[in-house]
């Protein structure tokens, strides 16, 4: 019996319905308030509260039971609504919608300080109307006869770099990484089988050194909001989930969860910067209500019809161009292969013969063919006797490319065979991993030994400086996906996105990895990661309406830490 539930399509492949406002309104009208697997808290029952916010609404509440409240906004008419509340330590979190509207509030009250943070939430604020929008207001619960508190909750980087495993009271299990101040990663262990990590714009609000508010919206996917208060010491959470799932059913529930702290990775802000401001160079946060920075790869990377793509590639191929921001720190071109002749014999795959004329030109043919094909290539010797090179396969039907790592000490080869086009998009690369041996004068390859897939990188973070001003960080988030994270001006993590990935161990501290920027720009990135020299060498393979690009990668690395997550993937390293 299958133990892990895998979806028919992963989130980035689901064609979420573009719900209309009328459809959303009808679904919201059918709910009386959030459900909960745990008993709702009665902490607010019988109380009347006035919450005043800075530059935001004044909300007057009266709680008649543990699931019914009355609220008046800004002195307006009082309306009754269903709600759900849960508490964590001295924090009370409650959620409600405003009947007859597509709006509501998620409210977090610190009962010890009377500070309050209010998330106004609404549907219909973006092209994709199912995407939950939010505006955060900081304020306090009015105490008659007392001066308003001067402090406020506020944004922070004090939680940046943490990671947690969470299990909600409804059985939902996730791993959530907080590698940036703008985004987070979430791995849906129970909903989606935990194969891939996904990224979503996220707010991080500090209550105190151990209590924080986390709030993400799954933009570009279902548009669902997940908001919770968490205690970092005890790994406990109370929260709310609001949105529409892949079947367009309303998910609106409050939850209690427990988890485990899985680690803390490095932060790269200057010392003393605690993240009370987000710096974005010349960009500014959108000023509209709810404005935030959102990476929208579906929107910015349009699908190109196959015929158009083929025509563009026929017209323009850029093979290892000189100017390349991704290779400003690449190592020297290797001379190792120049003049050599060898055969790469893959298990259950092709047999390819090579003659390397010089450091930039090679000829190849499949075993049995008579004609050679000329290609341009680049190669790098990442470790003694380990050569990586890449080239196109001229004439191949899918604009194929090879990214090859050969270990001459062991006469082993691993190749990532890229092809352009998937069932989803013509301008999206696919990849197969080929294991095999090197046949060459002076080498006797092993019969059984091969390079192997590895999980040794899972949970690790490594920053990559490609050239001045261009640095990202890889988070090897799951055994089958990685995230790339771009740093903000002050070194905070900023935007990020994820894609399928895999890792092959070549030698100790030497890994051959790929990632696919699926449902994004379609790039296949292949890198040989050397964690002794802290440098990579690699090949990017990309096609779009401007043609095909096969380009080198070369970056300097820094260790950025590790999350201890192997056990959640049923793996151990």
């Amino acid at each position: 019996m299958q133990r892990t539930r895998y979806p028919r399509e992963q989130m980035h492949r689901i064609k979420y319905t573009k719900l209309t406002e009328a459809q959303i309104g009808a679904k919201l009208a059918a709910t009386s308030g959030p459900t909960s697997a745990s008993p709702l808290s009665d902490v607010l029952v019988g109380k009347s509260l006035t919450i005043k916010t800075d530059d935001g609404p004044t909300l007057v509440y009266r709680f008649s039971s543990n699931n019914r409240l009355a609220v008046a906004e800004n002195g307006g008419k009082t309306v009754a609504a269903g709600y759900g509340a849960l508490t964590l330590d001295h924090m009370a979190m409650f959620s409600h919608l405003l009947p007859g509207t597509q709006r509501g509030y998620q409210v977090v009250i610190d009962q010890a300080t009377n500070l309050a943070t209010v998330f106004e939430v609404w549907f219909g604020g973006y092209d994709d109307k199912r995407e939950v929008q939010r505006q955060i207001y900081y304020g306090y619960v009015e105490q008659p006869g007392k001066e308003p508190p001067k402090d406020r909750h506020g944004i922070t980087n004090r939680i940046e770099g943490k990671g947690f495993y969470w299990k909600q009271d409804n059985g939902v299990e996730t791993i959530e990484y907080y590698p940036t101040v703008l985004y987070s990663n979430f791995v849906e262990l129970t909903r989606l089988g935990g194969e891939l990590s996904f990224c979503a714009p996220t707010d991080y609000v500090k209550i105190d050194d151990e209590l924080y508010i986390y709030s993400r919206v799954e933009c570009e996917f279902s548009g669902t909001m997940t908001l919770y208060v968490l205690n970092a010491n005890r790994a406990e959470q109370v929260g709310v989930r609001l949105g529409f799932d892949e079947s367009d059913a309303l998910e609106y529930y409050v939850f209690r969860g427990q988890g485990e702290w899985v680690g803390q990775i490095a932060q790269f802000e200057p010392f003393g910067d605690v993240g009370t401001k987000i710096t974005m160079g010349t960009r500014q946060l959108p000023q509209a209500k709810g404005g935030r920075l959102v990476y929208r790869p579906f929107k910015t990377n349009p699908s190109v019809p196959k015929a158009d793509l083929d025509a563009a590639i026929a017209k323009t191929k850029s093979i290892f161009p000189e100017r390349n921001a991704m290779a400003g720190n690449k190592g020297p071109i290797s001379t190792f292969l120049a003049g050599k002749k060898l055969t790469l014999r893959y298990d259950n795959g092709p047999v390819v013969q090579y003659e390397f004329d010089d450091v930039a030109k090679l000829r190849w043919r499949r075993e049995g063919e008579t004609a050679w094909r000329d290609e341009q290539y680049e190669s790098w010797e990442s470790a003694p006797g380990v050569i990586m090179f890449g080239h196109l396969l001229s004439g191949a039907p899918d604009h194929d490319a090879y990214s090859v790592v050969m270990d001459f000490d062991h006469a082993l080869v691993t190749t990532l065979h890229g092809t352009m086009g998937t069932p989803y998009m013509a301008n999206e690369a696919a990849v197969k991993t080929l294991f095999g041996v090197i046949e060459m004068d002076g080498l006797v390859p092993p019969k059984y030994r091969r390079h192997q897939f590895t999980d040794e990188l899972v949970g690790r973070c490594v920053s990559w400086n490609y050239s001045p001003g261009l640095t990202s960080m890889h988070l090897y988030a799951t055994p089958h996906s990685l995230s790339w994270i771009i740093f903000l001006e002050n070194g905070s993590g900023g935007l990020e996105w994820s894609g399928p990935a895999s890792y092959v161990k070549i030698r100790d501290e030497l890994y051959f990895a790929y990632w696919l920027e699926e449902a994004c720009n379609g790039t296949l990135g292949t890198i040989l990661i050397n964690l002794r020299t802290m440098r990579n060498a690699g090949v990017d393979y990309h096609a779009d309406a401007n043609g095909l690009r096969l380009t080198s990668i070369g970056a300097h690395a820094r260790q950025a830490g590790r999350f201890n997550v192997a056990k959640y993937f049923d793996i151990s390293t």
Partner: protein
Amino acid sequence: MNKTVDSARRRFIWNAGAALSAPLAVVASSASASTTSDESSLNTRLAMLEDANAIREVARAYVKHVNAGAHAEVASLCTDPAAARLDGIRALTADPHGHDDAIDIAADRRTATARISHAAETERPIEPPCPLVEMARAQGGGVTRKTERGVLEGSFVKIDGVWKIERAAFRTD
């Protein structure tokens, strides 16, 4: 012929102080020693110094607004904002260790040029673009930044008694 007001900060202040005291001296001694040509010379000198001061103030305001990204305010100081745009400059800081500043005012006091030492925080887009660069640009990055010393050069024109910037450029040393 243009007259140069040497306005390296210390010397400019010293000269301005001398100039401001001169008319008082003139006024005090006018009954016995003044001549029409002396008065004219002093008035011209004073006017030149006032122009230099005004130009320096315009330049200072221009730098302040450039640093703040206040495009409308920058435009209000210029006859043609496009000709005064400093592409690739993120911020300017007066450079006390740079070259001597110079403001040259035409004899008719209708146009002028200025060269004022600054350190510039330059910003250049990373080229050519690639997916990672484009992602970085989405959050205000995708650029290389460095500090370069040089001279803010400007040409000025007086319109209705107000000095405006006709053209501005930053030249690195």
